[in-house]
């Protein structure tokens, strides 16, 4: 009996391994008119939410282009197929999975979620001669290593806090004179905070404090206690969602009311921010890679507004910028393959390097390190529980509410 069960298990295991192998085989883009892309995404673990949004963005792009017949390369149409693997929100796993994809013949990689995983994957991509379009790794460190095979469609980390400083300098009245910067201690947040401090100084603001706390902290009371007696005009947070919510919650608890208001990079455009904080979230500004007011259009998605409608119809929720980043990365690949007229990794890489296109995500043009350096960041503000775009000014944007009333009067 035992032997039979053991045999059964062996057979099952063998079958299972065959099954998983067949998923990753198939050379990069010749089999039956299909181009195989791979992505290691955080589908479980602490970044699961963002990982799933990224997958939605990739899937939307794939379905959209396949519905049009596929990607046109040298007069022939190829369907897109994307293989996903779960990196469990750990960078090492993301790198291993990308390596395994290479063993399975997948040369074209769509980026994982987040700077840490992207940085780990980029090293492997470079070693293997794969090609990666990064959709969510903004840390400038990724582009400081001389990699030739990684291109990022999103604005780099240095623009996240800087955009809010610029918006405040341009739109706020009275203009904030003193600023405190609170930052998480991961590479991305620190890079953003340092660049923001520099921008604030050159805009004539006085940066009176820069405080750091652990990435993912839900208690930032120490930092707020230190900042409170300085009575600053503006508190800028270079943070993720958890720390952003903690800053607002605990500022309310501790009675920290900056005369101007709060600006919290990526926390604000996440719907959970408003949902969790309710009225306390009102008037907080944040920075976003993309908003439905972003300028530009392309033949696949149309304008940012068309993209919004498309995602709503297909997924039943409003698009978040994570969706848009992912779709934009996929779009950059399609444009490059089309331009290269070949599915040779080297040729697609060169086509990417010289890409210069307008898209629903804004302009895409990579600098020599692979960053999409010229794309402007948008600044958003929560107004009466709704997220509106306030900067850069243009059609569909709203005036900035300034200064922010104290908690309790919002």
């Amino acid at each position, binding site marked *: 009996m035992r032997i039979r069960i053991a045999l059964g298990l062996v057979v099952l295991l063998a079958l299972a391994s065959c099954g998983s192998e067949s998923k990753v085989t198939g050379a990069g883009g010749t089999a039956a008119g299909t181009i195989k892309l791979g992505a290691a995404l955080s589908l479980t673990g602490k970044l699961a939410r963002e990982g799933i949004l990224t997958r939605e963005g990739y899937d939307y792009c794939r379905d959209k282009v396949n519905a049009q017949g596929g990607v046109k390369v040298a007069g022939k149409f190829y369907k897109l197929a994307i293989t996903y693997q779960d990196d469990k929100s750990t960078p090492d796993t993301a790198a291993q999975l990308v390596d395994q994809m290479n063993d399975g013949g997948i040369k074209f990689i769509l980026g994982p979620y987040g700077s840490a995983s992207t940085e780990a994957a980029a090293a492997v991509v470079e070693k293997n001669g794969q090609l990666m379009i990064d959709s969510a790794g903004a840390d400038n460190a990724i582009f400081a290593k001389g990699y030739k095979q990684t291109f990022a469609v999103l604005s780099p980390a240095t623009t996240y806090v800087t955009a809010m400083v610029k918006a405040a300098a341009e739109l706020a009245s009275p203009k904030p004179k003193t600023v405190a910067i609170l930052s998480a201690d991961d590479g991305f947040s620190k890079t953003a905070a340092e660049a923001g401090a520099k921008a604030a100084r050159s805009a004539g603001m006085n940066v009176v404090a820069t405080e750091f706390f652990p990435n993912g902290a839900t208690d930032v009371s120490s930092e707020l206690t230190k900042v409170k007696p300085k009575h600053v005009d503006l508190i800028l947070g270079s943070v993720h969602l958890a720390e952003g919510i*903690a800053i607002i919650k605990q500022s309310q608890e501790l*009675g920290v009311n900056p005369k101007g208001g709060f600006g919290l990079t990526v926390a604000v455009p996440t719907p959970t921010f408003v949902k969790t904080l309710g009225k306390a979230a009102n008037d907080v500004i944040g920075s976003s890679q993309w908003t439905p007011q972003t300028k530009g259009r392309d033949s696949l998605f149309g304008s940012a507004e068309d993209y919004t409608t498309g995602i709503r119809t297909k997924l039943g929720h409003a698009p978040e910028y994570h969706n848009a980043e992912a779709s934009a990365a996929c779009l950059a690949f399609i444009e490059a393959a089309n331009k290269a007229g070949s599915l040779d990794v080297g040729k697609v890489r060169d086509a990417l390097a010289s890409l210069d296109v307008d898209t629903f995500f804004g302009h895409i043009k990579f600098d020599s390190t692979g960053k999409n350096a010229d794309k402007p960041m948008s600044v958003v503000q929560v107004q009466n529980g709704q997220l509106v775009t306030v900067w850069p000014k243009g059609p569909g944007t709203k005036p900035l509410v300034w200064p922010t009333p104290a908690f309790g009067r919002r």
Partner: protein
Amino acid sequence: MAQFLQATVYGLLQGSLYALVAVGFSLVWGVMNIVNLAHGAFVIMGAYVALEANLTFGLDPLIGMLIAAMALFVFGYLVQRLLINLVVNAPIWMTLLLTFGLELFCVNVLIAVATGDYRSIATSYAARGFSMGSVRVPYGRLISFVLAITLTAALAAFMNRTRTGQAIRATGMDRVTARLMGINVRNIYAVTFGIAAALAAACGALIGMVGTFSPPGAGALTLRSFVIAVLGGLGNMWGALAGGLLLGAVEAWGGQYLSGTLVNAISFGVLILVLIVRPTGLLGRPFYEARVEV
């Protein structure tokens, strides 16, 4: 000075929440010699029950807390009775493995059901507060503080004054003799585990009220419970409370004078220091050392 006072008060309020997480953890460890690595996951589950009660029925988290505690008591009872009892005599690493597996399972089920999002239970009062001079005291945290101390006191009274409590302590001291005295050890273990899970759930509801929670945060809660349980002395309810308050205050002071990124180094530094000076923990007594393991 004002800043120091503010940090101290807030640190103690925060510490009382840490303490409440750790009380149940310490109880299970002290009585059953099980380091329950899934304890943090129970806290998060409790928070979700209270959140659901709030969203569906509009219940205040302080009432949701009771529902969460009852639900998790049943859950904890069954987990111990059906699962952990299987390995309770096995070497410690077996129980570590099992509870670690349980943690992974619970956390990933929560992510699958509720997503990895940060959640919070909204109330009209939790974030408001009053000022004592220059020190600000938020209502939500004050309520949590009072409840943490009340619950710890209630648990201590339960352990000392009731027959069930005494049976739990007796079983913790010497399982074989307890059995000879007619105590149903299986049931007592399950009740103990249930109480720990209920306390964890109550604390989860409070954390949801004053802060935020998400399933992947479970590990950090377990780790902190571990530090506090060892700091305070195993199996001692008041020890866990003292350990939690101490840790909260030390972390707050550390945050004022050092960089906030050192917070974990501070926690473990305190732990090492206390263990060097007092290996039995702050309030640990030779009482538990006398326990006979059979």
